[in-house]
């Protein structure tokens, strides 16, 4: 039995169906990420786990207790809100103590907890300030402190970092990860930032329009996205999608890429049964930019690398590597190259493609052809 089980949970406001049957299950101590575009229902799902919204149908269990009917305070969870939601009239100390006070924790014990939490989050010097007198990052810490003080079985985070500037966000991200490793408490974390999702999560649920498109480990989702949406959402810069016609040669999937001057044949992995149904038809070839690179950067120990010629359209240096935009089959395609091998606009470059990593999708159903 998992730490959190969500079974066929639906939510409707009148006739609008916001969540259309969510199924998720995580083990104790796991870090679950709910990621998806704005309005896909992430906060709604989180509020339902918290008990702040009621469930239209389905079942949510925390540990082995079904909590559908329990009020938020009886669910043994703590939540960190996007806007921090600190009590403006109380000092940091009172903010942290409020929940303990309501639960009638004796004063000396409260003091101990506050001291412990403040030390963990390094906010000892802020204890007597009001929220108004804190910076965004400090408020963020206090909000986490308030959640930590309760020592719950489940933490909920609703986009806790989205109000911070980029640098602070990266800092807090690794702090949250450290904290999770130290405490080992189960966490459900909402974000719309795919980098946050990849770096923090043990399990990621990619949501869209009230449905979970894919649920798995970050690596699974990165290497084997379930459909075009997930493939495009995770990874930055995002995956290239090139329309191609699928052929079969010697048991391998083969596609043709036209760079504007010549058509080049690319030999992919051995063809699978589901792919064989699409031979002779249009499919979508998905290649991540880092799998399309210059020969020097390619891992040469792996045999079977395919070499492609292409004309450089734009180069965008990022520092460690340069993003080179070329055209295949009329589609702008991004390759990640070593700065020295990037070439200049108009030049011909040689790129290598790792065919084992290339993915094929059905353009109609958008599902990956496994």
């Amino acid at each position, binding site marked *: 039995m998992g730490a959190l089980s969500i079974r066929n949970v639906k939510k409707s406001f009148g006739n609008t169906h916001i969540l259309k049957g969510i199924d998720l299950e995580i083990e104790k101590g796991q870090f679950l990420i709910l990621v998806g575009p704005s309005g896909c229902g992430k906060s709604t799902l989180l*509020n339902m786990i918290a008990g702040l919204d009621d469930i239209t149908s389905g079942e949510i269990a925390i540990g082995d207790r079904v909590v559908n009917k329990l009020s*938020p*305070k009886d669910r043994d969870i703590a*939540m960190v*809100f996007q806007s921090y939601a*600190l*009590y403006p009239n109380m000092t940091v100390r009172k903010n942290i103590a409020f929940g303990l006070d309501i639960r009638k924790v004796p004063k000396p014990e409260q003091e101990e907890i506050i001291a412990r939490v403040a030390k963990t989050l390094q906010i000892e010097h802020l204890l007597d300030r009001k929220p108004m*007198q804190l910076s965004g990052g400090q408020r963020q810490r206090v909000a986490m402190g*308030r959640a930590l003080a309760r020592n719950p079985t489940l933490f909920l985070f609703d986009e806790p970092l989205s109000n911070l500037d980029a640098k602070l966000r990266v800092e807090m991200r690794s702090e949250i990860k450290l904290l999770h490793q130290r405490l080992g408490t189960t966490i459900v974390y909402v974000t719309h930032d795919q980098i946050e999702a990849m770096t923090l999560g043990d399990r990621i649920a990619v949501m869209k329009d009230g449905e979970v498109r894919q649920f798995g480990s970050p690596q699974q989702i990165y290497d084997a996205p379930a459909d075009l949406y997930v493939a495009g959402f995770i990874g930055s810069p995002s995956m290239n999608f090139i329309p191609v016609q699928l052929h079969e040669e010697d048991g391998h999937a083969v596609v043709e890429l036209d760079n504007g001057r010549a058509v080049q044949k690319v030999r992919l992995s051995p063809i699978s049964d589901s792919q064989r149904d699409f031979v002779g038809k249009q499919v979508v070839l998905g290649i991540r930019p880092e799998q399309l690179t210059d020969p020097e950067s390619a891992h040469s120990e792996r045999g079977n690398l395919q070499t492609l010629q292409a004309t450089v359209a734009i180069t965008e240096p990022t520092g460690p590597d340069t993003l080179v935009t070329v055209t295949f089959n009329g589609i702008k395609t991004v390759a990640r190259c070593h700065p020295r091998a990037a070439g200049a606009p108009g030049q011909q470059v040689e790129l290598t493609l790792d065919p084992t990593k290339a993915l094929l999708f059905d353009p109609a159903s958008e599902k990956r052809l496994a």
Partner: protein
Amino acid sequence: MTASRQGAPGFSLSRLADVILPKLVLAPTVLACLVGFYVFIGWTAWLSFTESRMLPRYEWAGLVQYVELFGNDRWWGAMQNLGVFGGLFILVSLTLGLLMAVLLDQKIRFEGAIRTLYLYPMALSFIVTGTAWKWILNPGLGLEKLAHDWGFTGVTFDWIINPDFAIYTVVIAGVWQSSGFVMALFLAGLRGVDDSIIKAAQMDGASLPTIYTRIIIPSLRPVFLSAFMILAHIAVKSFDLVMALTGGGPGFATDLPSIFMYQHGFTRGQLGLGAASAMMMLFTACAVVMPLLYSELRRERRG
């Protein structure tokens, strides 16, 4: 870039627009305020140190008017009435206004209609309020008569003609007029409270009454202050309401400093005494408001 802008011919024109124009636009208002408030305060202050009777006289006479004022029983009666009226009026208006705002904040239906209904009294002038309540409270016309007509002949509600209770009728009329406005102030404050704060408190295990008493209402502190200031100044300058409702009577039972000032200054030919009482009203108002403002400003400076 900066050098070219400094030398540009538009410099004086943009300076005119940026610096002088706002001052020019504000000047008449500032001037009107200076004359309307401070010049007349000064004039009144000067008159309070003279022996002016029907007409202003400007020879210095020292503190005679103040000595006379402090020896005047009617003045102390008026001050006492102001204390009772002001205290109750502010307290009840704040309590009622807050209560109505909290109830209205529970996402009830017809909220817009109810809010407007509560706010309507504020649109009336105090004269209208006073006259209306004079009729309502008149034992021969209003509530008491209504109760009698319905057969409850034992009911007596004659506060308005009872010297011991008349001041409370002024409180009733004043509260009726102002509590809707106070409610609107509090409602705006309540609406400004972030929803997620309430959610966070729910997660912390607080019940709705606890959330209100320990988090939301305390965070409305600035609203309390503004409401208090507004009500206090309404109380101190109350004049038309009492004139229309009771005329200061029965006897001097609902006499207020403002009525005292008006009658001595303008109808009894005791301009000097009236001016002295006006100055005392100003000091009273300052004594109430200044410490509050000061402490609030200090809080803000401390952050």
